[in-house]
C-alpha cells in the first residue's frame, strides 16, 4: 500500500498586512477630480470629519498587495487540490463557468433598485431558479431571499409561526400559542438557534440506536399538544435516510404541527426523491452545498426556502412573480399581507442564484440525478472500505456521507482530532469531526460526486494507515500534522485571552 498523495515543499512566510505597510506607499490611482473643488469646511464642518488620517490603515503598493494575498492563499487547502470530505458541507467542484456567468457585466453592474422593466434579465434568472427549485423539492413556493442555511431556517420556522398564528388565531393569546419546536439531538446547531430566534422553545427528540428519529419519543412529545413543528434533517446528520419520514410527518401534522426540513443534505436526494412528496411543509436549500456555489472560505451562501402552497402566503417579500399580463414580464410583488416580512435587504445573494441556475442548466435533469447517484456511491465506497477498520455507530446504509467514530482507536489514546490532523499529512483535508454530537468522536465523511475512484481509494488507504499507526506508532498520530507550516495551535489559550485585532503599537493586545 503506497499513499503518495503528499510531501512537503517550500512555502513563503508573510506578516500581517499592517506589518508590511510602509508610510508613503500607494497601491491605487484615481482619475483627477474633474469638478470644481469645494472647500472642505464648506462640504462638512470639521467636527463631522475624521481627524485621525486613518492611522494604522496600511500603505502598500499594488505588488505588495498581490504578493501578500497570494502568499497567504497558498497556506489554504482547497477543492482544486483534491478531496475535501467535510460531512454535511458538500464540498463539490466549483465550476469556473459559473464564476464567469456571475461576472457578466449585465448582471454584476445591475443595481438592485433599478426599475423592474430595466432588470428583466435578473428577474428572469430568479424566477427560473425558483421554478427549478420547486420542481426539485416538490414544494411550489420559493423565496430566494435567505443568505445562508441558517437564514433559511429562520425564515422557514418564522413562516411556521406565522401560519400557526393565522390558523389558530392565537396571535394575541400568548398562552395558547404553540411554542414547542421539536429538534432531534443529532441536528445541526443552527436548527435550535434559528428556532430560538423565532420565539420557539426547543425540545430535543432522541435518536434510536439505529441513528433514526425515535418515533415513540416523537409521539410522546407531540402528545403534549403544544407542538408547533419539527425540524428534521433528511438524510439526517448521521447520513441516514429517515425511512419513516412519511409517518413522522403524519404524527406531527396530526398533532397540529408543521414539518421543517433542513435541506443541507439534499445532495443525497436531488432527482431521486422530493421532500414535498414526503410530507415536508417547508425546507431550506443550501445553494452553497447542493448547487455548488463556492464556500469562499466561509461564505457567501444562499439558503432559499421552499414550501407548500399552504405556506406560500407567508414567504418573505418581495416575491419574484410573472406580471400576469401574459407579456412574459417579471415583477417584484410586495403585496403579500401574510408575509413574515423581509429577512434581508434587496432579494438575496443574487450572485449565488446565477451560479446555482448555471449548475442546474449545466447538469440537466439527467445530470442532476447522476450527480446524486455518484455522490451516494462514493460515500458507500468509503463506508465499505473503512468498515473493518473503524467503528460504525449505525448499521443503516449511508447515503451521501458516512459516519465513523474513534472508538477503536481511542483505546490507544488516539482520538478523532488526532486522526483528522494526521490525514493532513497524507494530503487530505480532514472530514467533519465531533458532529453530530450524539456520537462520541464522530467522523462524518462526505466525498461528494466530485472525486474519482483512485482518490477515494487513496483516502481509504490513508485512513487505514492511520489506524495502523494508532496501534503501532501512536505518537506520530498524536503529534500530527508534521508537514504543515505551523503545528496544532493552542485554541484554549487563544480563547482565554483573545487577541482579535492587530494594534498599531506593533503589538497585538488582548481584547
Amino acid at each position, binding site marked *: 500500500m503506497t499513499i503518495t498523495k503528499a510531501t512537503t515543499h517550500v512555502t513563503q512566510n508573510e506578516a500581517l498586512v499592517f506589518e508590511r505597510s510602509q508610510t508613503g506607499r500607494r*497601491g*491605487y490611482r*484615481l482619475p483627477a477630480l*474633474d*469638478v470644481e473643488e469645494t472647500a472642505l469646511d464648506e*462640504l462638512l464642518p470639521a467636527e*463631522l470629519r*475624521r481627524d*485621525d488620517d*486613518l*492611522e494604522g*490603515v*496600511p500603505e502598500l503598493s499594488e505588488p505588495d498587495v*498581490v504578493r501578500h494575498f*497570494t502568499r*497567504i*492563499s497558498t497556506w*489554504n487547502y*482547497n*477543492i482544486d487540490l483534491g478531496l475535501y470530505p467535510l460531512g454535511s458541507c458538500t464540498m463539490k467542484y466549483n*465550476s469556473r463557468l459559473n464564476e464567469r456567468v456571475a*461576472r457578466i457585466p449585465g*448582471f*454584476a*453592474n445591475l443595481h438592485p*433598485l433599478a426599475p423592474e422593466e430595466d432588470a428583466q*434579465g*435578473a428577474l*428572469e434568472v430568479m424566477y427560473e431558479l425558483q421554478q427549478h427549485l420547486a*420542481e426539485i423539492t416538490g414544494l411550489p413556493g420559493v423565496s430566494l431571499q435567505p*443568505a445562508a442555511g*441558517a*437564514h433559511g431556517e429562520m425564515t422557514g420556522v418564522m413562516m411556521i*409561526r406565522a401560519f400557526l398564528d393565522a390558523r389558530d388565531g392565537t396571535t394575541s393569546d400568548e398562552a395558547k400559542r404553540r411554542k414547542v419546536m421539536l429538534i432531534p439531538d443529532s441536528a445541526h*446547531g443552527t436548527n435550535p*438557534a434559528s428556532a430560538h430566534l423565532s420565539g420557539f422553545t426547543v425540545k430535543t427528540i432522541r435518536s434510536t440506536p439505529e441513528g433514526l428519529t425515535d418515533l415513540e419519543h416523537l409521539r410522546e412529545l407531540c402528545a403534549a399538544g403544544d407542538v408547533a413543528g419539527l425540524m428534521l434533517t433528511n438524510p439526517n446528520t448521521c447520513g441516514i435516510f429517515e425511512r419513516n419520514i412519511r409517518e413522522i410527518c403524519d404524527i406531527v401534522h396530526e398533532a397540529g404541527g408543521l414539518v421543517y426540513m433542513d435541506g443541507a443534505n439534499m445532495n443525497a436526494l436531488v432527482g431521486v426523491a*422530493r421532500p414535498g*412528496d414526503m410530507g415536508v411543509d417547508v425546507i431550506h436549500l443550501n445553494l452553497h452545498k447542493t448547487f455548488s456555489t*463556492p464556500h469562499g472560505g466561509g*461564505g457567501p451562501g444562499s439558503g432559499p426556502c421552499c414550501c407548500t402552497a399552504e405556506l406560500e402566503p407567508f414567504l418573505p417579500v418581495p416575491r419574484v412573480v410573472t406580471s400576469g399580463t401574459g407579456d412574459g414580464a417579471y415583477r417584484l410583488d410586495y403585496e403579500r399581507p401574510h408575509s413574515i416580512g423581509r429577512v434581508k*435587504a434587496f432579494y438575496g445573494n*443574487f*450572485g449565488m442564484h*446565477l451560479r446555482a441556475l*448555471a449548475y442546474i442548466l449545466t447538469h*440537466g*435533469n*439527467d445530470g*442532476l440525478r447522476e450527480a446524486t447517484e455518484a455522490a451516494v456511491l462514493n460515500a*458507500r465506497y468509503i463506508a465499505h472500505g473503512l468498515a473493518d477498520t473503524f467503528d460504525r455507530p449505525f448499521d443503516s446504509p449511508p447515503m451521501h456521507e458516512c459516519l465513523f467514530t474513534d472508538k477503536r482507536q481511542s483505546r490507544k489514546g488516539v482520538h478523532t482530532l488526532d486522526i483528522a490532523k494526521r490525514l493532513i499529512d497524507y494530503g487530505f*483535508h480532514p472530514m467533519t469531526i465531533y458532529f453530530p454530537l450524539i456520537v462520541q468522536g464522530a467522523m462524518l465523511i462526505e466525498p461528494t460526486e466530485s472525486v474519482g475512484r483512485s482518490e477515494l481509494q487513496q483516502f481509504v488507504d490513508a485512513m487505514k494507515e492511520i489506524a495502523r499507526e494508532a496501534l503501532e506508532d501512536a505518537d506520530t498520530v498524536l503529534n500530527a500534522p508534521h508537514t*504543515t507550516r505551523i*503545528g*496544532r*495551535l*493552542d*485554541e484554549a489559550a487563544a*480563547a482565554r485571552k*483573545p487577541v482579535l*485585532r492587530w494594534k498599531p503599537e506593533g503589538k497585538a493586545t488582548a481584547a
Partner: protein
Amino acid sequence: MRYIPNSPEERQEMLRGLGLGSAAELFDSIPADIVLTEPLKTPDALSEIELLERFEAMASKNAAARRPSFLGAGAYHHYAPTIVDSLIQRSEFFTAYTPYQPEISQGTLQAIFEFQTLVCQLTGMDVANASMYDGSTAMAEAVLMAERVTRRQRVLVSGAVHPEYLRVAETYVAHAGIELGRLETDEATGRTAIDASALDDKVAAVVLQSPNFFGCVEDLKAFADRVHAAGALLVVVVTEAASFGLLRSPGACGADIVVAEGQSFGVPVSYGGPYVGLFATREKYARQIPGRLAGIAYDKEGRRGFVLTLATREQHIRREKATSNICTNEGLIALAATIYMTALGRKGLQEVAAQCAQKAAYARRQIAALEGFSIPYSAPVFNEFVVRAPSDAAGLLRRLASEHNVTGGLALSRYYPERANDILVCVTETNKRADIDALVAGLKQS
C-alpha cells in the same frame, strides 16, 4: 456529466464491488412510494457554449446595467481595482470551506484577522467580527445584541434608517420580545430629531444611520451623550462604507455598536448581493458579539497563527443559547473588502471619499440651481442627497432613462408613497463630470 469524475463504467464497477446491481439500489433505504419514478421536469443539459449564450441573452435584458447611474440607497457604484477580483478567484480562497482546520487554512484565517482589524480602524471600535450577511441583517443583530447587553426591550430606530433595513429588523425582533420605537426626521435638516422624552430607562438602544437614508450626516455625538445618559447603547448603521474615509468614525462619536454594509469596498452591486455586513463593538461586549471571530494562537514551537475563537458564543456549541444563529457568513466578500481596503489603503480610502463628496457637492449645486428643483434638507451630506422635483419623480426618472440614457436616482415613492416628487441622488467617484452635466441637462429638459 463532465463534472463527475467517475465514468458510467467506473461507477458500474464500483457498484459491483459493493454487491449492488444498479445505482437505484443505492436508494433502497428510501421507501419506494416516495422515490421518483420520472425524471425531474428541469431542462435538458446545456453545453458551455449554449449556457453562456443563455445567460448573455438574459443579461442583455438588464438595460439599467449599461447606463450611467445615480442610484445609491444601500448599494453603490464604486471602482474596484482589478486585483480584487483576480485575487479572490484564486481557488485557495474561493473554494475553501470555513477554516475549521487551522493548519491548512491560515490564508483564510489571517485574512479574517486583517479584515477585523481594518473594520475596527475604520469604525473606530475595538472588536469586529468576521462578517454578517449584509448591512441589514447586521443591524437586526445589533438590535438583538443590545437587548442581550442591556436586558432592556425597547429599541428606538431612526426614521431615516434605510427602510429595507427597518423591515428586516422588524422581522428579526418579531419573536424576540423587543419593541421597536421610531424617531422622527426633522423636515428642515433631514436629520433624526432627538426625542428626549422617549429616552427612558426601558430603552436598550437607539439606532441611527449616518449618513442617513436621505444622505444627511447625523450629529452622532449629540445623540451619544443622551443615549448613554439613559443607560442605553448607541447603534450606528452605515450603508455607504466609502464615507468612513471622510466622516468622523462612529466610534469617535461614542457609538457602542457599529454595523455597516461593506459593498462599497470593491464588491459589485450585482442586483443586491452577495454583499457583506460589518459588525463592530466595544471590547467589553466582545463575548456578546454574533458570528465568527478570528484570533491569534500559537503552536508548540511558539509560531504565530490564527484560529476561530470564542466559539462558545456560537450555535454549533451553544445551540439555542447562541448569540446568533449565523453560521456561513460572507467570507469571500469580506476578503474582497479586505483586499480593497488594503489596495486603496490609508490615502486611497480618503481620496475616494473626498471625490465622492466633491462630486456630490458639485451635482447638488447644479441641481439646486435648476428652476423648479429644490434641495429640501439643510444638513451636510456625504454623497447622497434628496432632490425635490417639480413633478412626479418616477415619471421624470423614466424619461431620463429613455431619453437621456441615464438612471437619475431613486424615486423615494418606492418607499414613501407620500414623497411623490422626491429623488434620492447618489454621486460617486465613478460618475464623471460629463455624466453629472448630462443628468442636470436632462432634469432641466424634463
